[in-house]
């Protein structure tokens, strides 16, 4: 029922082409068109961080990015972090620190923390708390998430 736009971009290291509609968000494109469901819908308005992805080296809420604006960009999602060493360290420390309960927010936290550790390998606890303030978690109380990110930073050095 709508006009569609052809776009091409690099997704998790692979060049992709897809058709998107003008109102579609990057989140909807990833989940509904490309079946990458690791990126979650939590609020649709950039307040919860469950849909965090990486675009051209920047951490973004994919619900606030138009799919059409992904054209020509380089995008990394949680699925693209399957073999990345920094992400592996993070995932392992999230598991071992007990930073995962219902797990719905976890991919967003991992992508955000992956970005943070890329910029600052040994963030202070305060920097970590600031770095994840855009991600909401209702289960854990954040303490173990902060510990997990600090542990991953230490593990990587």
């Amino acid at each position, binding site marked *: *029922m*709508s006009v569609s736009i052809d776009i091409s971009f690099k997704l998790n290291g692979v060049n992709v082409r897809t058709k998107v509609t003008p109102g579609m968000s990057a989140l909807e494109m990833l*989940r509904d068109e490309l079946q990458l*469901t*690791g*990126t*979650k*819908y*939590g*609020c*649709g*308005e950039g*307040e*919860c961080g*469950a849909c965090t992805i990486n675009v051209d080296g920047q951490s973004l809420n994919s619900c606030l990015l138009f799919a059409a604006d992904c054209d020509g960009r380089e995008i990394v*999602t*949680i*699925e693209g*972090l*399957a073999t990345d060493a920094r992400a592996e360290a*993070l*995932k392992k420390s*999230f*598991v*071992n*620190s*007990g930073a*995962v*309960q*219902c*797990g*719905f*927010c*976890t*991919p967003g936290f*991992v992508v955000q923390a992956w970005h943070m550790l890329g910029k600052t390998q040994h963030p202070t606890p*305060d920097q*970590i*708390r*600031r770095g*994840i*303030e*855009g*991600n*909401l*978690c*209702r*289960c*854990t*109380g*954040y*303490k*173990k*998430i*902060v510990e997990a990110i600090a542990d991953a930073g230490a593990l990587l050095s």
Partner: protein
Amino acid sequence: MAGAEETKTNDSLIGKRIPKMDAPEKASGKTRYVHDINLPGQLHAKILRSSQVHAKIVSIDTSAARALPGVHAVITGADVPWQRPIGVAKDHLPLKTDRVRSPRDEIAAVAAESEEIAAAALKLIKVVYEPLPIVATSEESLKSGATLVHGDDLIVPGPDGKPQVVHKGSKDNVAMTFDYGQGDIAKGEADSDTVVEDVFWLHYVTHCCMGVSGVLAEFDAQENLLLYSNTQVPFLHKREFAELMGMDPGRIRIIQPPIGGGFGSKLDIYPFEPIAIYLAKITRRPIKLVFTREEEFAASPTRQPVLLKMRSGCNKDGKLTFRDVETVHDNGAYTSWGATTPFVMMQTISSLYRVPNCRYRTRAIYTNNPYAGSFRGYGNLQATFAVEAHMDKLAEAIGKDPLEFRLDNAQEPGEVTPQGMHFKSCGFKNCLKTAAEHSDYQEKFRTSISKWNNGNPIKRGVGMASMLHVGGGAKIYQSDGCGTIIKIDDFAHVTLITGASEIGQGSETVLAQLACEELGLPLSAVTVVNSDTDIKPWDVGVHASRTTFIAGNSAIGAARKAKAKILATAAAKFNVEPDTLNLRAGCVIEKASGKKLIEIDKLIRSLHFSDKAELVMTTHYYEPPSQKQDKAFRGDVSAAYAWATQVVEIEVDTDTGIVKLLKVTGAHDVGRVINRLGIEGQIEGGVVMGQGYALTENLIVENGVVRNPNFRDYKLVTAPEIPEIDISFIETMDGEGPQGAKGVGEAPAICVAAAVANAIYNATGVRITALPFTPENVYRALRSNAQPPTWIAAA
């Protein structure tokens, strides 16, 4: 995995830091929640909700919506004349036919080829309303002459097709009442040297599960119904859905994909679930219905707001003499579990401390507000808030240290309360002392008071609160049990099939630990199956902090039967008595010497592939030794009770009203720690949820409308705001608990707001009796500009 390594060294798994078994999937984004599941041929459903708060429905015109390309079905109540009521009081039809009582009310639903088309179709539905007066508060609702929210009988066709009254119209707006009494209030008051009285206001909050509500419904060619559901009570819901649809419950299968947060919100059936089923039945296609976040805020349950009047007394020796409580609960427009939370509140009011004379009267009142559900703590946050404020006030009035005053009135092991609760294990006094000691509570309490008038606008304070909650299930249904099936294959791999539901709390890991402990196998040898009602045995559901206790005992029971069979086989093979043998590190060993006799897998193969040809498969159903309470609310409702004390330290900026939670020092009687990592996570998460209740969260409902249905205006606690958390575990080794454990899920959220209120008083000398402690509310209270809550005159 850490668990596996620990078993190799032949250590016990109990009390260790065991990573959650499903965490690797979740951390890598591979876990498929209900939102991530798509079935071939599925249609997307959306619901049209009322644009009015309270109104008669004059007409609904769906013709334009039906004509929209891509729309497969548009339904209203008229299309499902056979629909049956839902909810605790059966006062509620999924699709409203003649009247809406709340802006969340469901009027029509669309099934279409995409969410976009379904949303477009909703806009084409024309509804004509005739507005009715809005009943916006309990106070208005109780006034004589108030508009009745459920004044008319709700009549639907019965099973025989004849009209049946399913909910009687009421002459007032009272939805439900609870009255409890023990001793003699007049005598208690006469025995008192000091009496205090306050009115408290406990506000609206909501669950904010990170995964929004959603369901998939599909009928197969033989009319069997399959649901992918986030329910916390799959077996109860099978029965209810069967009644709603006039089906045999045996033809309903519920699959529970991993759930994006529960916290009590999924204990009831909500209209969207039957609506999805109606659409699946009508379209013959799988139906997927997922909320938006705005819809989640407006149309999912709340923790109910409570106005609470409490009068308490003690004598000059510091013994409580009486407590008299009356509450009014805003039930909202329909009755869900929120109306029954007084059942838990009265336990705290009557039995957290020893109080010989006690009365508790409560009414849940219909209004046109969002309706109240169950939420972690189930009324206990509200009751504890009032009880613990009065413990501080009474202590101050008679010049006693607040810790000493609590210790003088605290429950002890062996106590049977007037309500009939038997505290077989009770670490309450130890919780009080430990939390006080680790936080240096008494010294800090005195220091803060000495600084009230020192001119510094930044004040520090400490506050203490304790809690009692069920820790061994809660017998509110005919059975509070859970079944387990264990099968061990010929490679000694265990499939643990439990009735229990996993909602992120870590039950699968705890149950695997408990089974492995019996079977002498590593955690890596276990697969837990817990999400399919066609496979798993019955369980009453995940609520009341019951899963570790009830499902844990059930898993242990099944594992012990498997162990007995393995040992009997080994005993016959080695010609010894079974009780001389044990299972450790994957082997049958001689108990006395520790000598390995045979690997378990090898032994099982020899059993399986022998002339006897048997498998190791066992079942166990555990029913806790607890009682359903009688009509006077007396009875030992739980097999064990959990206790905790939390001390909070705060900073109040008296210039801005900002309250910062600096530290929470907790001591929790958990019976025994099974998984240290998991239990820390439960407590930290609960504390921060309690922090949100105290300081930041506030569902603003004005004239029936939720004004802040988003995370920008409804403020959850974020990472930079979390306090330092120091938790001690008091291990009382409960005699009935699995390995001595008691439930803990709800406990940590209960005390925080009560303790923060006491800390604000300790910091400033101002007692605030209304939540939440947002900067504006605190600022006004500190300047005496706040109107303290008042009791409803009409009540």
